[in-house]
């Protein structure tokens, strides 16, 4: 009734006013988060590209267009070699960590999911490495990998393998295994260095718990009725695993695969603390190379080159992620 008394013009104005106030209040709630994200993530993200187009060491020198990119991607230049080496190391690092992490985590999650006694306690222990600081945990592993008194040399000694230099060993593992059996392999088939393998062992130890927890959550999401129905229809356990569990878990597998790959490519702290890219650059992944370029060569265009490298690297990561989406994504089953 009262509404009819108020002239239409005022009604519209008050409605507009109310909507404006509602919007205003909402943006007020969002402002702190949006300003911070803009200032420290969006603007720097754009700035990274701009910086990669300059010569910039200790101070800004000049605009350089694509000179830095050309310097990195020119096969005859000095930068090309180190960048390609770093990419190769990064690929090995991904291959040495992601599949093994996922396989072990999947088995552990399967076993835990079956209503094992003390599941909670196991879960707590498996997850422990993940919450530990990478720097401190790497310090422990440095000690366990010690060439003279390390615990790992003792363990492999028990099965008759001689002491290794682990983190200080630049030789490729294929070459080392080959020479143990009297077969000399050429350098191009040397494989990743033992040092990189040691770093990978640490990485696997550190991240297994994370993946186990995610897989466990994924398994818990699968409806129990499906299993019961399959069993009533006389399906065997192996068939249930193949036809029900794995397809329904595939979104989780896919998610973990992508996160783990990107995470491994971007790893920095553990490599920095364990080897800092050595010995002989055999553990220098791209993030380490960017860091070294940026800090050790600040005087000679470190910022420009570092920014260009990080931009190329980002494009490579995006390309690999898209590739994973295209090739693996099709095999993912969404319910």
């Amino acid at each position, binding site marked *: 009734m009262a509404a009819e008394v108020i002239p239409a013009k005022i009604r519209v104005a008050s409605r507009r006013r109310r909507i404006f106030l509602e919007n205003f209040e*909402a943006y007020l*709630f*969002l402002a*702190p*988060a949006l300003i*911070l*994200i803009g200032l*420290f*993530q*969006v603007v*720097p*993200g754009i*700035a990274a590209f701009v910086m990669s187009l300059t010569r910039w060491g200790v101070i800004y020198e000049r605009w350089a267009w694509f000179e830095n990119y050309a310097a990195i991607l020119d096969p005859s230049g000095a930068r090309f070699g180190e960048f390609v080496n770093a990419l190769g190391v990064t690929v090995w690092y991904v291959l040495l960590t992601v599949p093994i992490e996922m396989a*072990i985590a999947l088995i552990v999650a*399967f*076993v835990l*999911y*079956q*209503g*094992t006694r003390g599941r909670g306690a196991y879960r*707590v*222990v498996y*997850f422990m*490495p*993940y*919450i530990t*600081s*990478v*720097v*401190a*945990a790497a*310090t*422990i*592993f440095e*000690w*366990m990998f*010690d060439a*003279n*008194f390390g615990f790992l040399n003792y363990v492999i*000694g028990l099965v008759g393998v001689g002491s290794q230099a682990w983190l200080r060993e630049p030789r490729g593992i294929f070459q080392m295994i080959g020479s143990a059996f009297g077969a000399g392999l050429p350098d191009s088939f040397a494989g990743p260095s033992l040092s990189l393998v040691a770093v990978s062992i640490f990485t696997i*130890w550190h*991240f297994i718990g994370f993946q186990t*927890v*995610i897989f*466990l959550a994924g*398994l*818990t*999401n699968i409806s*129990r009725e499906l299993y019961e129905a399959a069993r009533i229809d006389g399906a065997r*356990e192996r068939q*249930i695993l193949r036809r029900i569990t794995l397809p329904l878990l595939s979104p*989780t597998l896919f998610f973990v695969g992508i*996160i783990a790959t990107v995470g491994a490519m971007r790893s*920095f*702290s553990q490599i*920095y603390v364990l080897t800092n890219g050595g010995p002989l650059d055999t553990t220098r992944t791209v993030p380490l190379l*960017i860091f070294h370029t940026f*800090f050790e060569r600040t005087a000679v265009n470190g910022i420009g080159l570092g920014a260009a490298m*990080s931009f190329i*690297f980002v494009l490579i990561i995006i390309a690999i992620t898209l590739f994973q989406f295209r090739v693996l994504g099709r095999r993912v089953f969404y319910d």
Partner: protein
Amino acid sequence: MTRTSAVPTSRSRPLNLGKIGPSLAKHALLILGAAVAAFPFYWMITTSFKEFGEAAKSPPVLWPTSWHLENWVEAWQYPHTLWANAFANTIFIATMTTLGELTTSVLAGYAFARMRFRGRGVLFALLLATLFIPTEATIIPNFVLMSRRYLGWYDTYTAQIVPFLVSIFSIFLLRQFFLGLPQELHDAARIDGAGHLRFLWSIGLPLVRPALVTVSLLTFLNAWNAFLWPLIITSRPEIRPIQVMLVQFTTEGGSRYHLLMAGAAFVILPTLVVYLIAQRYFIEGIARTGIRG
């Protein structure tokens, strides 16, 4: 990863792989795995109490013959290390970061879940997209941004706190929880004349307390473990956090591993204790959001 539900309570076996291997083998496998996961911690603690000669003995001594508590004192008072200072710094930085991030993500999470405004969908999608801006690309510009020419925050606490006062993961997690509150509650509060802020403070927050605990713990943990950014953005030892201090300590300590392990224990033990007390919040939080530290 938002569809996660709690761990099932019933003992029924939805996937009976157990028939492939008997229960004993299963437990043997799990115990072996747990031993591998836990051994480095054991090795850290026992080494830290060994005598120098015993720490570097071959074959290794699994249980110290005598316990040298003074190793911890020696590590704590090692020349050029400012452990007490570093701890104070880390606790200060982590506390401020946690309080700030909690505030920004509660407000933003609530707005995305419960307020109607123009551009909500677009803004939320944009927020998602920023997750793809990687640290490698932003770290150099951020470093430049901190320099005297722009913000002038190089070598300050501010530089170690302010960039971390927001987390998209926390916003998501809280939004999820606010969406879970019944609409009737909201309507009732509005009829009684409560505005958004009032509703949030006296009804919303108490109801999403588990999410607040999870966000606080994970934020605090991340701040406690922060390494790369403080390493490059600080140079004065007095304002550096424990992780950077630990690296400096290990560099100076050389191969005196009994002391290095004491240093690692300083850094690890507080988080381990908190984790063991509140492990449920950590694990559920990770399972819900898929945060990879």
